[in-house]
């Protein structure tokens, strides 16, 4: 009878647990540990080096009184919505087009993907040129005779964040497309057949059958895009350095600038704690719904 006891939970799926040790260590030591460390030091006035010299919530107080931080948050929201929507939509459409058993699929795929391989340090410069009203696209169009044409998104404070998104999409959608393509390739042929017999138009098949089936892929994509959005930095630096003025500043740049240029770690940590806090508030409940509970996601 004693054998009927559930065996020690620790040893069930032992292999899986052993295999997960790197993940567990990373999660606990690096992410939890690192985050705790960051949060702790955000209450200090650390400058160049982290020092435990507590100043309460001064850093936060200053943070929220800084116009640049407020602008950054606003920009992040705009940029986030734009790049989320467009990279998902464009990425998926491209993947769907490539999935039509077309010729030269490899070539097209590589073309859409190559920007991802190029460092943004320089491609940012190219986009800066292309969007420059004096010698970029605007000039070309004007030279063609349309003299009132105006297209200077990087040099106009009110739309600069949209301008930055143009290059962001150029660089990022290729990867999204690949992810989507991988997802599309996992779908059973018979489902397509069933939908064809049911008389469901192609786009509806994608929208109502295939996309929901690709839910896990979309979640992955969503997280990748969202993480990219929250961390966006290079893109802005390379194109506008946050300008004109502070019109295209973003939170990650604020963090970086204050940690390393301003040598005010405390302020940088406070800003990154705020970023993390908002991420946690959004992600944790969602992640538990998505990944916890049910047997299979």
């Amino acid at each position, binding site marked *: 009878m004693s054998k009927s006891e559930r065996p020690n939970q620790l040893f069930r799926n032992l292999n899986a647990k052993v295999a997960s040790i790197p993940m567990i260590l990373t999660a606990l030591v690096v992410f939890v540990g690192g985050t705790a460390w960051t949060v702790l030091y955000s209450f200090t006035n650390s400058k160049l080096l982290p020092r435990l010299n507590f100043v309460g919530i001064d850093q936060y107080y200053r943070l929220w009184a800084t116009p640049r931080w407020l602008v950054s948050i606003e920009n992040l929201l705009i940029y986030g919505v734009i790049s989320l929507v467009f990279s998902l939509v464009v990425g998926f459409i491209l993947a769907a087009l490539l999935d039509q058993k077309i010729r030269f699929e490899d070539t097209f795929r590589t073309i859409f993907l190559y920007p991802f391989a190029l460092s943004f340090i320089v491609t940012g410069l190219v986009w800066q040129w292309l969007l420059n009203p004096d010698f970029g696209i605007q000039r070309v169009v004007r030279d063609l005779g349309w003299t009132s044409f105006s297209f200077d998104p990087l040099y106009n404070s009110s739309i600069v964040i949209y301008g930055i998104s143009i290059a962001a999409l150029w660089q990022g959608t290729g990867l999204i497309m690949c992810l989507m393509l991988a997802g599309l390739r996992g779908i*059973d042929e018979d489902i397509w*057949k*069933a*939908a064809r*017999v*049911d*008389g*469901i138009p192609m786009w509806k098949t994608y929208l109502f*059958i295939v996309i929901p089936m690709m*839910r896990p892929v979309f979640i992955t994509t969503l997280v990748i895009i969202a993480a990219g959005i929250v961390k966006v930095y290079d893109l802005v630096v390379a194109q506008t350095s946050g300008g004109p003025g502070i019109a295209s500043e973003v939170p990650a740049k604020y963090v970086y600038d204050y940690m390393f240029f301003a040598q005010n770690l405390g302020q940088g940590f406070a800003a990154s704690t705020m970023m993390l806090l908002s991420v946690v508030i959004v992600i944790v409940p969602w992640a538990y719904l998505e990944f916890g509970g049910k047997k299979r996601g």
Partner: protein
Amino acid sequence: MAAAIASPSVSIQDLSLNFGAVSVLQTLNLDVAEGEFVVLLGPSGCGKSTLLNCIAGLLDISEGRIFIKGKNVTWEEPKDRGIGMVFQSYALYPQMTVEKNLSFGLRVAGVPKDEIAKRIARAAEILQIGPLLQRKPSALSGGQRQRVAIGRALVRDVDVFLFDEPLSNLDAKLRSELRVEIKLLHRKLENTMIYVTHDQIEAMTLADRIAVMRGGVIQQLDAPQTIYNRPVNRFVAGFLGSPAMNFIKGQLEAGDPPVFKADGVSVPLGRYQFDGEGGRAAKPCVFGIRPEHIAFGEAAKAMPFTAESTVEIVDPMGSDTLVWTKLGGQILSFRVEADKTLRNGDAIRIGFDPARASLFDAETDSRL
């Protein structure tokens, strides 16, 4: 074969299909009349699903044409062919509930809400899936999934239904119930049905005509009783019927009446209906007789042909018992009622009416 149908609902002409080097269907012809129920029967891998897929327009054919309702649909999209289909692999939309699975095609077609609800309710009732409507396919058992797949075809209002083994995963009770439902449905809707099955009872009870296929070729297309009683060749004869037809190899001897001879037995064929005159010539042949056409004991005495034999094996099968014996040195089985008590080694008398037998050329395997 029946005469050509005047205005067939589905007409397949010289259809061929290859998967790369593998040729699956070969210049296949099939006419299905308006409102007819045709069952495709054939061994696993003979191309039944492939044929259905071709009719549905889901596979690009290599040659030939397909007409539905007199319209050449060879190059049409599946949705424009007016068909509904049940897939052997179900192909349910995994993320939709059962209800959504059923209603999706209708909603896309713009059928009004209450009409959809009505049709779903009806299908759910027929298929006994009412309580499952809100579940997703992954939370269903195999049979439940199959029923949903049938339901998805049923709710569609189309001229031609294609069913690929729709009942294979269901229990006998449900199967016979659904069989009746499908039959009734067919009577009511009067639509054309092409139905793949492995179950002979299904084939026999449902079909107006049965097409027996083998290796991508239709061997015989006829009414169930004809196929059962007058199979055109040995393959068809052997394929239908369970337990299978007994075959006894021997020699056809010309004469009046011609006689079938095998090791120690000679069966006069006066009552046998030959297929034309040519068949009467002497030649090696195979004599086929179904187990249920063999009488035993008292009943055997009344038969035109009788013989003595001994019981070799007794195989109870529930409602009846299969008894194995020998005739002409070759194995023979016949069916008796389950309560007849027979033992191995019992001496018995068997008999049959040669009119119910089938005679095949030993070389070409075709009916004599």
